[in-house]
């Protein structure tokens, strides 16, 4: 029994990172109306920012999270400038292609600038609690706390501020929002930056939890955040959070019940099953565009 509880705990911890990535992804997806391919690389840059803050500036974990947030925010502004701003009215594919290009440049550039070797990220919280045979690490609880705090902050921001409301409006319907006097371009910049910044934070957590950062870590991270967002309903932010945590649990329980070779198979079979029953995802709007 302890074994399954432990698996569940580890799954939730892993899922909380996925959730944070997926929230950022859903946010960007919502305002752009399109998938972005730069996501994994944004996560990687955030992770490296946190890594440099922790190892070279010897800051605490909070400053590291802020560093990841800030670096990814700035990268978000750059991505908007390169990928989206110059082609405001182009066909949808233009944005897809530009993000693929920027993603490739970032990934290759990172290998040149940051090196191709895996880097060691020091531990931040090494303590743990024991409940019978189940061990809960402080870092796991910390990650979950970061997820809750950021989600709550995001929810307040979207609910209570003017910019937040405008973001929601753009996410629902760009043309209608523009007609009502929303500066769509500005919202696009802000929304994209927030989405990226959240990913930056998830990158820092990823690095700290697994003690490693790597220039090519973005690939699988981007894929997992996409899968989580699809599970949750693509543009739904609470959906993405739930989707992320669920994906983490599925992967771990899949290993516990079957074998580790089946890890991704189980996770993605469940994903397909959910989409068959609810094509717009767990919390997706009916009739929303699907990928």
């Amino acid at each position, binding site marked *: 029994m302890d074994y399954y509880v432990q698996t569940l705990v580890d799954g939730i911890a892993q899922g909380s990172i996925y959730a944070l990535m997926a929230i950022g992804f859903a946010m960007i997806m919502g305002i752009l109306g399109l998938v972005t391919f730069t996501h994994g690389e944004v996560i990687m840059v955030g992770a490296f920012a946190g890594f440099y803050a922790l190892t070279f500036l010897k800051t605490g974990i909070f400053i590291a999270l802020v560093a990841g947030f800030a670096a990814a925010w700035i990268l978000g502004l750059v991505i908007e400038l390169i990928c989206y701003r110059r082609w405001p009215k182009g066909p949808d594919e233009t944005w897809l292609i530009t993000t693929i290009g920027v993603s490739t440049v970032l990934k290759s550039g990172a290998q040149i600038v940051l090196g191709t070797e895996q880097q060691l990220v020091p531990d931040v919280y090494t303590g743990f609690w024991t409940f019978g045979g189940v061990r809960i690490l402080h870092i796991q609880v910390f990650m979950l706390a970061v997820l809750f705090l950021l989600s709550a902050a995001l929810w307040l921001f979207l609910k209570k501020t003017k910019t937040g409301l405008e973001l929601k409006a753009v996410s629902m319907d760009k043309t209608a929002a523009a007609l009502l006097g929303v500066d769509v371009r500005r919202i696009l910049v802000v929304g994209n930056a927030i989405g990226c910044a959240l990913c930056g934070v998830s990158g820092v957590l990823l690095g700290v939890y697994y003690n*490693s950062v790597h220039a090519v870590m973005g690939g699988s991270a981007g894929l997992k955040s996409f899968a989580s967002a699809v599970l949750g309903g693509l543009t739904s932010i609470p959906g993405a959070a739930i989707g992320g945590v669920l994906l983490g649990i599925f992967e*771990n329980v899949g290993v516990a019940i079957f074998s580790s070779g089946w890890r991704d198979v189980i996770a993605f079979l469940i994903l397909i099953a959910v989409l068959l029953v609810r094509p717009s995802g767990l919390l997706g709007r009916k009739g929303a565009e699907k990928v």
Partner: protein
Amino acid sequence: MKKTGFMLLAALALLASGAVAFAADTVRIGLSAPITGNYAEYGENFKYSVTMAAEKINAAGGLLGKKVEIVVMDSKGDPKEAALIAQKFVQDSSIAAEIGDFTSTACLAAAPIYERAKMVQLSPTASHPDFAKSGEYMFGIVGTQDAEGPFNVKYIAQEYMALKNVAVIYINNDWGHVTKDRFVKAAEKFNLKVTGEQPFMESEKDYAAILNKLRQANPDGLCVAAMYNEASLIARQIRKMGWNVKLLAPSSVFSAKLIELGGEAVEGIVTNTFFALEDKDPAVQGFIAEFEKVAGRKPNLHAACAYDSMMMLADAIKRANSADRTAIRNALAETKDFSGITGKLTFTKVGDIERKYKVMVVEKGQWVVKKDYTR
């Protein structure tokens, strides 16, 4: 016009006679190695090591009363180039034998050409089990993957660590499968109980679920068939979950990077190698110092193998007392207990070597040689 042609011919004739005269007082050995391209670092190491060995032989009076001369050709890590080089070497009657190439693929591509011309191809690094089997004249000294699994089971898991049962976590690629497979087969043979075997995906960073699963059977030891970077993360996650299991791993983790990345978590991990910079043997330390002087960096296992290849070849030529290609082959095949810097070497019937290893352990953040079966 006619005159220039004649002059040219004369010059050529002169050159040719010069070459022949030159060849007569040297023993020429071909070296085919990837001096440029992807494997340039390894190819350069080959060149440094083999040249160093040749100089040492010459300083001691040479071979058959002649100087040894190394003819280096760049295969660029390309099997096609390796085959072309083979063609050139076998046509040049002054070349007695060949050392190279680096990859198993390049060696296998060149093998039929050397075999037809009855010239020895001695590869320092080809580890594919089929290479030495592919011909009478094919020799490999790095040892094949067949020897490591049994060694890890018998000498490391059972004798050194005294394990009764063991679980295996392995990387889900060709190498991981072969390594796991050889380990598990050997375990069956030597009655070491394998309580579980689980693969992990190459890009995966979260091993918690897999490790928890393997932990359920409560094995004494865990064999981590992974590269050093993944192995260090696995070790860290094992310590974080509070699992007190003894770790062993194939030689892929033998790197200073493992300790750098793993820290205290890799303390006590056991692996094997047959060439270690930490080896206290004076011959090995001498080689390391000399190599560093020439190359400006520390040698690796491949460089050591290249050095031993040249020395073995020289030993064979001495015993054959002739630079005849077939005579060299026969003498080389009879090599027994040759004392190289990578250990005592004896060729098997097919022409490769059943390697013995050193047991290496991380102690206080350092690799330490615990037991040495190579000598």
